[in-house]
């Protein structure tokens, strides 16, 4: 799924593209998920956007 979507995006005219990494974006976690995952992400940047080109 991921690869197909990225391949499709590669065919589009110039655009901005970002990937939001779920594990480094605690806002997208539900309360029960947050309890366990925040420990791992606490030291990481809260909002981390990675340019697709870096994939």
């Amino acid at each position, binding site marked *: 799924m991921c690869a197909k979507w990225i391949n*499709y995006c590669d065919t589009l005219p110039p655009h*901005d593209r*970002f990937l939001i990494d779920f594990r480094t974006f605690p806002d*997208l976690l539900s309360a029960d998920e947050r309890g366990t995952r925040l420990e791992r992400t606490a030291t990481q940047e809260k909002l981390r956007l990675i340019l697709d080109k870096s994939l």
Partner: protein
Amino acid sequence: MRPTNRIHRLLVIAGPSCAGKSTFLRKLENGSYPHLTQRLNVGDPSQLTTVYAKDAVDFDYRAHRNVLFHYALPFLSFRQKTLKGYEQDRRLDILGRADWVTIISLFADSETIHKRIRKRLIKLVFSLIRRPFSPAPQREFRRLLALRGLY
């Protein structure tokens, strides 16, 4: 000035079901991510119009200059494996209407996605017990079952 079907700025929020697209959209609209809206250069987030993929083909884009587009990527569905590629998806024609496109893809690990789909299915079962003839939960229930390859 003549109304135009062109979109000035289009933000595509893409990701599998239960990845957090709706949560992300809601928070973007209510200004929870000032750092992000500044970086995306979208201006006042409350002025963004949200368009869901199911409505994209027939949506009247006149007077909507900045649009957030909610697009669910196919995920683990036996049915959807038979779908043609994204190039064949007419809902994505919206990308051709925009002067500038920003694509934000949300990805989560499959274990989390499966857990969330299961939780959403359980909620929907209770919702259907309360309102058995309500079409929206029925549609969502079938869609989620399809995602798990059960429908």
